[in-house]
């Protein structure tokens, strides 16, 4: 049987030998920004030097600095990131941003040889200009609490040995050798952990239901379909710490009585697919998966299944149909998958982040978990913060943290002197929060009360250059497109809503359209079959509640306050800037501009076709659309 302590001792001995370790981020974000060439250059540069260089924990000369590739740090926007961890003896971590291959020699010469940081690569706060040496003090990280993401970016995701050295699989071992399945379920119930995939169903209760259900075999399914645009925590977890997800899954399987598992991962995530596959293989090689998990009676194995591009397959019953090789269409619940799931057998479906949180709960106990978050929504939640904020990225905070803290303390506020307008939370099934909600705690209940939801945890920040109606149309287009077509309300209702919204943004609104839109939204919400339809009207209803005047401006005055909708733009000439050069007047294809040379020109709004030629030709920037 695998001895975790021996592995940990060996890895720690290796890590203790070299003076330095260099971590290069190898998450999708940093790879896209060019971290692979940086890694290659570091490898080449350090190889020639005496006493320097090494590739990975898994092989090579142990006395040299270790060069490792890690998962995502969350601050992808500033990638490629290179981190030189502290040594635990007073030498602080160094956190480098936007590293290019050209910076490598300087890193080696000053940091590795002389212990000095390269100032220009350190993080610089865009608001205050202050530089920071290590990640812990950067405001983006200082206000976070990382339980699920704790090791993301700090360890080699492809090394099961390092995972073990950081305490991995010890919880699983304790669970299968010392706890009864029911006890595990009860611990989870006590922790109050709620599903992170959207619905927030208590995880312990789901496991208990499957445990008690009749039928065999039982299955465990990890939902890695993450279809919500704007969310990427599950990807980062699978890429950055795949063994943590796997360990949670095996614990879930033991607790619920499952003997086989599937990781359903979307095809758009090639790196997550390959890292999860490798994690499963490595765990199998060590005997952690298989006939007898840690020498117990418990047998479990699993495989990865690649999705084929359908948002609705994130819905659990659709996902199960997809694993069975069918069209991914949801079916009515009950029966819930915990009773009748895959091939009609009891099946636990859990989200990636939910499973990644399980190890922490088992390791530290339910009470410690409840120390974070709110009584009804304990623990932490990851959020993908994107859109119009200074620092986009992946964060983890206690549930109940306010939107203001997230946008302004962690995200650094809205850039380019713009104003915060709204936050769209929970993807196309979520809702919009406005300025009045900035101090509202983000947790399952409070969000539900204002018609939004935690959902997958995507937060897209919108500033005053975004048109709310256009964003609603955008979400409706998404859900309408992804509707599987099985139930009428969702299939036809979302289409009608999309058409109305199109009419509004294209200036064809009729009296009564807003009422019709609202009525249709309510009907779709009530009568759709699955969560896709039930939640599709959320963006519309929540924005109608907060930004009704913006909708009314579109429908009644044919005016887009944000100046986004092309059909509703009005062009105007700024009398202070106009030099009366007559260029716009000559170029206007419909003769809507009048004025004498060297006097301020005017645009006849009634004639104007909003083609934008005048704006484009004006050399004095005197013409602008409003």
């Amino acid at each position: 049987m695998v001895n975790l302590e021996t592995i940990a001792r060996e890895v720690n001995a290796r890590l203790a030998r070299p003076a330095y370790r260099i971590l290069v981020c190898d998450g999708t974000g940093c790879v896209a920004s060019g971290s692979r060439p940086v890694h290659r250059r570091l490898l080449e540069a350090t190889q020639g030097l005496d006493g320097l260089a090494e590739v990975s924990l898994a092989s090579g000369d142990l006395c040299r600095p270790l060069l490792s590739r890690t998962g995502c740090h969350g601050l992808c926007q500033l990638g490629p990131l290179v981190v030189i961890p502290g040594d635990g003896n007073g030498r602080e971590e160094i956190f480098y941003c936007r590293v290019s291959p050209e910076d490598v020699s300087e890193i080696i010469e000053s940091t590795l040889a002389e212990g000095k940081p390269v100032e220009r690569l350190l993080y610089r706060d865009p608001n205050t200009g202050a530089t920071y040496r290590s990640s812990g003090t950067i405001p983006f990280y200082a206000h976070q609490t990382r339980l699920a993401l704790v090791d993301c970016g700090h360890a080699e995701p492809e090394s099961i040995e390092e995972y073990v050295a950081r305490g991995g699989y010890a919880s699983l071992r304790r669970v299968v050798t010392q706890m009864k399945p029911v006890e595990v379920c009860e611990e989870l119930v006590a922790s109050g952990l709620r599903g992170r995939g959207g619905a927030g169903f208590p995880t312990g209760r789901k496991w208990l239901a499957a445990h008690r259900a009749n039928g065999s075999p039982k299955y465990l399914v990890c939902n890695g379909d993450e279809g919500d645009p704007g969310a990427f925590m599950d990807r980062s977890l699978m890429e950055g710490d795949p063994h943590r997800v796997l360990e949670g899954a095996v614990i879930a399987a033991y607790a619920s009585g499952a003997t086989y598992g599937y990781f359903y991962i979307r095809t758009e995530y090639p790196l997550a697919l390959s890292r999860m596959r490798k994690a499963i293989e490595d765990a199998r090689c060590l005997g952690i998966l298989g006939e007898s998990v840690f020498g117990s009676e418990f047998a479990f194995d699993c495989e990865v299944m690649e999705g084929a591009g359908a948002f609705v397959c994130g819905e659990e019953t659709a996902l199960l149909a997809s694993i069975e090789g069918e069209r991914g269409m949801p079916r009515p619940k009950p029966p819930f998958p915990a009773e009748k799931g895959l091939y009609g057998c009891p099946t636990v479906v859990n989200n990636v982040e939910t499973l990644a949180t399980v190890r922490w709960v088992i390791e530290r106990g339910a009470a410690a978990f409840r120390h974070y978050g709110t009584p009804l929504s304990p623990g932490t939640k990851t959020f993908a913060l994107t859109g119009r904020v200074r620092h986009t990225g992946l964060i983890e905070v206690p549930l109940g943290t306010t939107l203001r803290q997230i946008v302004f303390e962690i995200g650094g506020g809205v850039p380019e002197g713009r104003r915060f307008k709204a936050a769209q939370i929970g993807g196309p099934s979520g809702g919009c929060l406005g300025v009045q909600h900035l101090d509202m705690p983000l947790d399952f209940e409070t969000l539900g009360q204002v018609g939004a939801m935690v959902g997958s945890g995507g937060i897209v920040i919108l500033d005053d250059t975004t048109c709310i109606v256009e964003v609603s149309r955008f979400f409706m287009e998404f859900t309408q497109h992804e509707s599987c077509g099985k139930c009428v309300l969702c299939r036809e209702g979302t289409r009608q809503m999309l058409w109305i919204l199109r009419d509004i943004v294209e200036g064809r609104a009729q009296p009564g359209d807003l009422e019709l839109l609202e009525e249709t939204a309510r009907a779709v919400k009530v009568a759709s079959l699955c969560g896709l339809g039930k939640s599709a009207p959320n963006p519309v209803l929540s924005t109608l509640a907060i930004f009704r005047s913006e909708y009314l401006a579109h429908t009644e005055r044919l005016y887009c306050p944000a100046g986004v909708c092309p059909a509703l733009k009005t062009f105007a000439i700024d009398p202070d800037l106009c030099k009366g050069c007559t260029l716009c007047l000559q170029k206007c294809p419909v003769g809507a501009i009048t004025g004498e040379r060297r006097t301020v020109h005017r645009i006849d709004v009634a004639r104007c076709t909003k083609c934008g030629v005048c704006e484009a030709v004006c050399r004095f920037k005197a013409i602008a659309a409003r």
Partner: protein
Amino acid sequence: MGCASVDTGSTRSRQFLKVNEILQRFNRDSRRLIAILQAVQDAYRYLPQPVLNYLATSLGIPRARVYGVATFYAHFSLEPKGKYIIRICDGTACHVNHSQALLDLVSEKLGIDQEKPTSDDLLFTVERVSCIGACGLAPVAVVNDLVYGQLAPAKLGEVLDELIRVEKGI
């Protein structure tokens, strides 16, 4: 049609060698239909009609089921796809960061868009996808599995120019 040669009697068994090998790999298990179709698409770059019929017969399932699945999922294509697949993300984060400009550029430069996604020379296919999970770097595009972040239209233009140069051997 591009797939006509697949179906001619004499070459039939040889043409289906690849498919047979795939079927073998998945134990001719109809529950693995999606994985089988993915493997076929990897091999042919699309799902040729005769292959779909052949799969139905070999797996002992109705043709309607194979077509049903093949047309349900966005990843499957019944039309040949180009050698280079340009995926432009139009997820929320990318949308509010002006991904439309990237779609416009591709349409302008290569004459392909949502309506007509593949160029006549079968070099390029454009797909508008929703979120590839790199939202922190919006706007994002993926060209043949290489992810490009914080992508300005001009930069995408350069990437495409380079591919065209490689193809034309200039």
